[in-house]
């Protein structure tokens, strides 16, 4: 089966991290849409024009990173990233959703500025002063205190939230928020994740893509002169 999308996307990384924890990275081919994002080929494969998307061996298309990540968790061996206990499982899903609905929404204006080069100063100011601190407060409230998002082992919640650490350093810090401030559980979680190979691998993958993107941009700027 084939997973499409750039590691710079936190939603693609959610799926990759899931595979990494399960030791199944070699079971899924990781590709980029032919012709790049939003190309004709991209829309032909996935009418939504988004990433990640997964094409199974029989041609079935699956979209939505949480659905793909849970699918990977179900079909591959290795540690399970969704607890059996219904309440713990719900907490994992809840935290994944908090990334989708709160964190990424607060991060959007700085991300738009640096990745898509669409800078909205008012939106960025609002994100830095209000939305991001509030999102961090919400996360602090619900996140676990044992160095993992829920319980004491890797779950999909860690897979969903780990990309946030890269985004914080690369995209949010330039605008004024570089860490979680005085939020002990988030700080504990961050330290534990970044000390682990799984966390380091994610930072390395995302960093490599960002570096390539910046280099390509620099070359394009030079060529334009």
């Amino acid at each position: 089966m084939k997973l499409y999308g750039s590691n710079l996307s936190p939603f693609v990384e959610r799926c990759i991290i899931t595979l990494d924890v399960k030791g199944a990275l070699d079971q899924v081919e990781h590709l980029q849409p032919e012709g790049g994002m939003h190309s004709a080929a991209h829309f032909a494969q996935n009418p939504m024009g988004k990433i990640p998307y997964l094409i199974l061996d029989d041609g079935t298309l699956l979209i939505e990173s949480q659905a793909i990540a849970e699918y990977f968790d179900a079909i591959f061996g290795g540690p399970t990233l969704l607890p059996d206990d219904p309440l713990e499982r719900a907490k994992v899903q809840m935290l994944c959703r908090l990334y989708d609905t709160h964190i990424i929404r607060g991060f959007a204006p700085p991300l738009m500025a640096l990745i898509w080069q669409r800078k909205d100063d008012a939106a960025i100011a609002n994100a830095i002063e209000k939305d991001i601190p509030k999102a961090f407060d919400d996360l602090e409230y619900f996140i676990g205190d044992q160095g993992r998002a829920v319980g004491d082992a890797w779950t999909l919640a860690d897979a969903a939230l780990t990309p946030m650490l890269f985004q914080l350093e690369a995209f949010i810090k330039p605008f004024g928020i570089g860490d979680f401030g005085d939020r002990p559980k988030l700080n504990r979680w961050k330290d534990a994740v970044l000390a682990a190979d799984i966390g380091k691998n994610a930072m390395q993958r995302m960093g490599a893509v960002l570096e390539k993107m910046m280099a390509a941009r620099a070359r394009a700027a030079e060529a334009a002169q």
Partner: protein
Amino acid sequence: MIIYGHGVSPFVQRCFVVADMKGQFDAMTLALVPDGLHSDAHKAANPLGKIPYLEMADGSVLVESAAIAAYLDMVLDGPPLAGDSAEDRARVQMMAALVDGYFGRGFERLWPGRADEETVQRVVSDDMQKAMDALEHFASDTGFLVGNALTLADAALIPWLFHLRVFGKKVGLPDFGDRPKLAAWQANMSKQDVAKGAFERASTALRDMG
């Protein structure tokens, strides 16, 4: 179990639809948020200040209707609603995520007072069309969103039927348009007690708002 929120909210109704699908409607109670939405009491119970939230026996809360729905499916007796195979489970989740992330996110802006006229028209003619195209693309052709039985995916979309009829109609979005699979889904849901129940409950709740 107590769900806090208001009966008009499609996210609240989703939880009751799930319980109803399991045959456990009576296991659930709907309680209004103490002191009203966004009150200090609301934020003390749920710092997100949103609905629904489910209060657990130990006083902690579960938020995010998708997570609550999946939880209820696991803990309540009755037919399983998450899908049988790993692939079906992924499809159920995918459809529910499309309902939440595209249909719901767009439709929220169509509620009275949420957006100006220009935005409303753009949402109706652009965002909602894309959302419905996506649902149509991935929906099963059986009259259910996934497979041929009620699942969490149907539970996510059923509450929106009320909103289409009441609020959508006012802005020129009364139904799913010329989309055969969704039309078949809507026709099938009109025969399902769980869908009728959701519609009636939302209708009553809206009336009670005055």
